[in-house]
């Protein structure tokens, strides 16, 4: 992640019309955006497409960026919305659950540790997607975007205490959902 001072300098150059600044911002942020979308979607190809879509939307909405939060955090919000729009968009394909059920090993087959970890990660991903909107973005930005709590608080326009309360609430809900899924 770009340091705040460096990011401010890049944004200042961007405001002055420096196209290289935009390239530098992309270079510094696209891996995190891709990682976040990979965690959200569980599909690298889809994440790559959504990353492009995220930057496309970001350039179009660059006028609404007010500088409260870092540019990367602002991108996380756009990426999350882009993924949700992709999931909710009606498509003539099978739902994600059914699509992935085919790839998941049967419960009756002996599984190695990697397979178990992948299964747990998949359940965790679904549990995160089932969270309320504000909790979902907070968890995704904090753990999958590596955004500090203070940065998320600035992006959301609320206090850090409120962000921590959101996270604790999300932990409890995730534990409950994962336990129900396991049973």
């Amino acid at each position: 992640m770009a340091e705040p001072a460096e990011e401010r300098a890049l944004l200042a150059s961007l405001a002055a019309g420096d196209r290289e600044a935009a390239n530098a911002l992309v270079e510094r942020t696209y891996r995190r955006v891709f990682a976040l979308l990979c965690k959200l979607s569980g599909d690298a190809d889809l994440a790559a497409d959504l990353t492009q879509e995220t930057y496309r939307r970001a350039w179009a909405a660059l006028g609404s960026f007010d500088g409260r939060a870092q540019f990367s955090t602002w991108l996380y919000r756009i990426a999350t919305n882009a993924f949700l729009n992709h999931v909710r968009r009606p498509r003539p394909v099978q739902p994600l659950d059914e699509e992935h059920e085919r790839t998941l090993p049967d419960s009756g087959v002996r599984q190695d540790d990697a397979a178990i970890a992948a299964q747990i990660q998949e359940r965790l991903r679904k549990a995160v997607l089932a969270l309320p909107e504000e909790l979902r973005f907070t968890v995704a930005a904090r753990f999958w975007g590596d955004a500090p709590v203070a940065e998320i608080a600035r992006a959301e326009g609320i206090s850090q205490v409120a962000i921590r309360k959101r996270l604790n609430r999300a932990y409890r809900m995730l534990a409950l959902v994962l336990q129900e899924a396991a049973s």
Partner: protein
Amino acid sequence: MTKLTTREIKRLLAARGTPQPPPGLADRIKAEIPDVLQLGGVGPQPEGVRGMPPRVPALRPLWLLAASLLIVIGAGFVAVRFFAPTSDLAREIALGGVVRIEDVVVTVPERSTVERQKAGKGIAESVDLDRRVPAPARPGTHTQVASSRPAAPAGGPAPVGALAVTVRDGKEPIPGVTITAARVDAAAATPRTAESGEDGQAEIAPLPPGEYTVRAEREGFEAREAKVRVAAGAEDRVNVAMKPEAAAAAAPAAGKRAAADRGAAGLPAPETAKGSILVTVRASDGSPVPGATVLLSFADRPDVGCGFRSAGSAGVATFCCVAPGAYRICAQSPGFLAASEERVAVPAGRQVTVELRIERQPADGTARPWTCPTPRPAGTP
């Protein structure tokens, strides 16, 4: 799966293993960067001003300017309200008291209820004092011509009263009457005077509480005098009935009736130089008829009565202060038939003697009317 703890949830969420971005993703993204990029606002905000209202950076200077203006205006209002000199009379009286008041005509604007409440009860009396001072003379209004006023004791305003005098002749107001109010219990105090206006009203205010002798005087009218007690904080009203000097000698009832009749008939008022009529009522045998009623009316308008008198023990009734002119005189008494003298000329300043003889009433009582007939006016059917 057993229930996961918060620590385990955090560990799961923080687990790595994300695949690397596909090659060329960054280039594809960079290729889609538009030629013109419009950054919103004024760019990133410095840390120190974050959180200050409003959120829109462009409005922040305006917000600071408006807040500064409000603070300056508020401070100025407080300074003016408490430290600046004021010309408010009630406030000056409240702060400094009253040492002496004389020959002051003050026009006080209407004050709001809040100011009155702030001024308090003590000031309220001073304010009333000022309000009682009449406005400059206007046609049809009374005027205060007081030469001096009693000074209020030093150290605070003294309670005062007021006197409103109405002077009338019957129902008619009398203008130009000099009203004098002199204190009974303080002979050394200078009497206060006022003159009645066209409405016959005069006001003397403020007046220290006490007992006053109020005297109403005007040339051509009988002076009247009355004692009035003026109370603090109140306006005492005095009605004074004045009579013309010539008419004052006549009987009050006869005078009132004659004046009313004259006014109703549209006849001219009696002149200053007047005459008198001496009527002697006798029976047909020449003996006086005491207690006989003598009626006086105009000869030309016998339907308009000028008054009546009762004859004395000698059968004599006197009409004094009668305006010069022609009159009709009729006498009547129980058990007698009425008799009249249709036209009696009364010259100015002279006394006219009239003798009326009345006959005893016949047994049948139909020969002549028992009471004085009231002839119709000349020219009416």
